[in-house]
């Protein structure tokens, strides 16, 4: 797939400690999207996932829920997000994925949505409530035509048989949910299950997400997978005064052990 080159190239050239950051479009301010992207790229992040806000985010804990609500109150919409991202590839070279619930995408129409993604240079999509069976039946051809990667989630509880199935459909990477639960709870690491999953020799790389919040948990995740995804902890950092200025110190705190200063 030619257009997944950015994700593909990344996993070709960087084999471990891949850091992906999730943030909600339109949070904390509606105009922050591009500034956040630039700062993330400058601070050495490998991948970004931009959350499409939704009124009913059932897989998310309080932090991401509130960021969704705030973003919607700010007036963020999927159309506006595409508008903001129109020229993003002039500056942002790292892979960008859109992550969100199926309903806003469904309302836009999947073909229309994917066309906009590919016009802009979005590399992939993560839709947690799009089941693989429906994807395979109704959506897959459109994703292939548009050359957009669709990333599936698995959990430590997912059976090996189902993981094989999800791996066959997933493009870009597989999103391994640290421990089955909603976002933002402290990750509990299921090393034995991660080992089971790794030993399956999947065709996709693995990134662990949900509850990765600091250097220690990032290291732990990287020990069991190709890298990790940080969401709620990053959103929390953005809740502070002067959010854009929080970004680089926060990313540094994930990548380097912290010395306590006082």
């Amino acid at each position: 797939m030619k257009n997944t080159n950015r994700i593909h190239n990344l996993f070709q050239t960087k084999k471990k400690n891949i850091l992906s950051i999730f943030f909600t479009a339109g949070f904390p301010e509606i105009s922050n999207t591009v500034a956040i992207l630039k700062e993330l790229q400058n601070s050495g992040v490998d991948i970004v996932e931009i959350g499409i806000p939704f009124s009913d985010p059932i897989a998310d804990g309080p932090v991401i829920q509130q960021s969704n609500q705030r973003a919607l109150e700010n007036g963020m919409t999927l159309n506006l997000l595409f508008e903001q991202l129109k020229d993003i590839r002039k500056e942002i070279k790292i892979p960008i994925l859109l992550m969100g619930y199926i309903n806003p995408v469904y309302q836009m129409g999947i073909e229309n949505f994917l066309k906009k993604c590919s016009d802009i240079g979005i590399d992939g999509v993560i839709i947690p409530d799009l089941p693989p069976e429906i994807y395979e039946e109704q959506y897959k051809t459109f994703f292939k035509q548009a050359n957009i990667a669709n990333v599936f989630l698995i959990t430590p509880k997912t059976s090996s048989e189902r993981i094989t199935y999800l791996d066959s459909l997933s493009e870009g990477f597989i999103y391994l949910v640290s421990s089955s639960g909603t976002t933002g709870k402290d990750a509990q690491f299921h090393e034995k299950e991660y080992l089971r999953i790794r030993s399956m020799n999947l065709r996709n790389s693995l990134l662990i997400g949900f509850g990765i919040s600091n250097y220690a948990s990032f290291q732990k995740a990287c020990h069991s997978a190709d890298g990790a995804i940080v969401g709620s902890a990053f959103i929390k950092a953005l809740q502070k005064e002067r959010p854009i200025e929080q970004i680089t110190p926060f990313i540094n705190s994930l990548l380097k052990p912290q010395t306590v200063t006082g």
Partner: protein
Amino acid sequence: MNHTANSKGFYGNFGGAFIPEMLFPNIDELKRVYLQTINEPSFQKELKVLLNDFVGRPSPLYYSRNLSEKHSANIYLKREDLNHTGAHKINNTLGQILLAKRLGKKRIIAETGAGQHGVATATVCALMNMECIVYMGKVDTERQMPNVERMKLLGATVVPVTSGSQTLKDATNEAIRDWINNPENTHYIIGSVVGPHPYPEIVTLFQAVISKEIKEQVKEKTGKEYPDYVIACVGGGSNAAGAFYHFIDTDVKLIAVEAAGLGLQSGKSAATTALGQPGILHGSKTLLMQTEDGQVVEPHSISAGLDYPGIGPLHAHLFETGKAKFLYVTDEEAINAGLELTRTEGIIPALESAHALSALNQLTFKKDDIVVINLSGRGDKDMLTYLEHYKNI
């Protein structure tokens, strides 16, 4: 006509299981066992005994002389209001708690709007000695205080939900999140024919006892095989699904009544089939009140039980195929129909059921038509609303 979900959980274009992978093991377990479990003779027997002796089934089919005279037809009320806990909701919670027991679950979660489903869940949990957690929008806990106290008295923990709009849809979100976080020991007793497959079908099957009885009672009372009309209100659609179920393949005219709130064009309405578009919420594809951007819109109805932005996928299918006719009744019309029944028959109906009653005014019948209205619940919980309105007339 397909009125059971297909193997993928679809009724025509609607239904399915649009769930995050974290919920897959729960839903998969339920999907694998529910039909077999429900059909086991020992399950059926235990359920039947409890429905008879604990709930008080069969609920009577009552001939309403006054309504019959007024509308020049034979009008019967299916008295679900006489069930234990005061509504049809207990038919479902009883069935589901037996299912949960057979699944070996120890902890029950539920969402509730008006509190009727919460009370019905807390009741069966007390009966079966199970832990019970009920999610209820904070706004609803305030406007339905007596039901909150009832649930607590029955031993349930009521969790006020402060996310989103703090009403039924958010309580449902929170219950789903709880289930994601407690997948092993917990069963989610959903309160209507909504949610991911197989829930719409499970709840329909447990409510189908309503139409089974209607059929037998119509035969017994009139000698006819079928009524001409069955009328029921639709929030999520469980009482309507139950009242329609055994008539879907027949010529019986099925009338589904939605809450128009302050009026269809007022911006304060819960009439999903009039205002909604296909969309995905709470794990199923259905008709949904939403913005162009796909954000779910907060509905309005005077009746908390009809205050839901979607309808079950079976109803979306019945609407799309024209198999059921959908009518819309405003807050005002519903209250008036409720007060009318109170004064002419001595029955104070739930405001939800009052919507079904008011639909009589939008229909014309032939003299010997047999019309059954599903009186889904009693109005005790709605006294304040009735009184407020009564003062103003």
